[in-house]
């Protein structure tokens, strides 16, 4: 055993890990204590929740959301936040991938004794991911597998972003809590800098988006990230030492090589200097966008009322493409088609897509 003693209890117990934020050795007990306390301090300082609110915890069965559900449940009881917590899962309909992770979420539901709601892409959009992959592949026989996975990943990403909001709206919750951790945020900051996406860069460091202080997204359900300052390393070790039940696999349809490269870069930085991650977040938070900078106007989609920078949102465009048998429609240059869709909507009473999708939306609730 190493002779290193815990920096917090000063030698009562041997250290089990090095905390990346401070490089201090901690024993398991002091680590649990510090990890939970820091998240509590973030919640209080940033006023993430109000008493009486219903919070949907976005649950994928992965490490981050499992730790988030566990810690929120624990802190809600320990500090009497007065919150009603529910687990909200999205089933994309990917055989073999979601099946196993949904089983994990169902076990989490039992373990944490929280209500679980599962919404499927099929219910929300009329198409499951497996069906989308088939449609994309069928129309493009010459496509390599990897290419159709790439397109499928575009669908999956766009649909997922809306799915939580649509689900949360349907369930009338006050907020969504997601498991984004410090590594994720640092990654997103760098990505938005490299892409020159000033609007996202400004928003991605906020711990809470879509609340009263954010005029741009007033129409959506607020989202918050209680694990914003928690390192991925600590989340994994917390889950491991607490023997939390989580599921890990790579998504087949994950298209984002760009993000992947940045992720690798962040991990390389972390090895050289572990505080880099928190330093990037702090730098990102200090950025102020010039008043004169041109920002995209946020509006709502004419079809589904979801926030969008265009008159017709990306999800509606993709659904239109699928239903018309041209799945690549929403990918690449889309402006012309969006205009045509708007025209159709104006002169035709059959606005078949998102409107009736809303009606069809049914909720499988399991208590």
């Amino acid at each position, binding site marked *: *055993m*190493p002779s*290193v003693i815990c920096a917090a209890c000063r030698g009562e117990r*041997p*250290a*089990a*890990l*090095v905390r990346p934020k401070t490089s201090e*050795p901690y024993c398991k007990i002091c680590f649990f204590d510090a990890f939970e306390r820091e998240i509590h301090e973030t919640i209080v300082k940033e006023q993430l929740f109000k008493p009486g609110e219903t919070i949907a915890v976005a649950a*994928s069965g*992965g*490490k*981050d*959301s499992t730790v988030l559900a566990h810690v929120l449940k624990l802190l809600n009881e320990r500090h009497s936040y007065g919150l009603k917590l529910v687990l909200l899962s999205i089933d994309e309909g990917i055989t073999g991938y979601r099946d196993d992770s949904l089983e994990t979420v169902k076990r989490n539901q039992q373990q944490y004794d929280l209500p679980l709601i599962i919404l499927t892409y099929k219910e929300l959009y009329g198409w499951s991911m497996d069906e989308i992959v088939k449609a994309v592949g069928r129309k493009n026989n010459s496509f390599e597998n990897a290419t159709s996975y790439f397109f499928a990943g575009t669908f999956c990403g766009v649909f997922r972003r809306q799915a939580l909001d649509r689900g949360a709206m349907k369930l009338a919750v006050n907020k969504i809590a997601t*498991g984004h*951790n410090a*590594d994720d945020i640092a990654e997103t900051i760098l990505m938005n800098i490299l892409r020159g996406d000033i609007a996202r860069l400004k928003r991605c460091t906020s711990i809470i988006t879509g609340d009263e202080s954010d005029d741009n997204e007033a129409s959506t359900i607020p989202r918050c990230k209680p694990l914003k300052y928690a390192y*991925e*390393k600590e*989340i*994994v*070790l917390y889950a*491991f*030492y607490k023997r939390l039940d989580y599921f*890990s*696999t*790579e*998504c087949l349809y*994950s298209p984002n090589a760009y993000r992947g490269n940045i*992720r*690798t870069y962040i*991990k*390389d930085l*972390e*090895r050289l200097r572990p505080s880099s991650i928190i330093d990037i977040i702090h730098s990102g938070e200090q950025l102020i966008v010039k008043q004169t900078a041109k920002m995209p106007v946020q509006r709502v989609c004419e079809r589904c009322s979801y926030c969008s920078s265009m008159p017709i949102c990306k999800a509606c465009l993709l659904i239109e493409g699928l239903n018309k048998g041209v799945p690549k429609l929403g990918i690449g240059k889309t402006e012309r088609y969006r205009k045509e869709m708007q025209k159709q909507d104006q002169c035709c009473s059959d606005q078949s897509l998102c409107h009736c999708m809303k009606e069809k939306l049914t909720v499988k609730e399991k208590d």
Partner: protein
Amino acid sequence: MHLTLEFAGGAELLFGKQKNHSIDLPDNNSPWTIRTLLVWIRENLLRERPELFIQGDSVRPGILVLINDTDWELFDGLNYQLKANDNILFVSTLHGG
């Protein structure tokens, strides 16, 4: 020398989806370390895409190493001298959450 190796957090996908491996390392002139163990793993256990597990002479950044449940950063990292029946756990943090 007998050891148990464990791969988790998605790292097991590179080892035929098998999480637990009970191994016996051959006697060596010099003592076994994590560094030489990684070479042995690459040659004997790793099934696919070695670059996703090993980078240079170490594990790829983002993979945590625990020696008998303790962070390898508290030991000598790559230079830690293995003892019989040690349990070495490799957890990937790179997979979805």
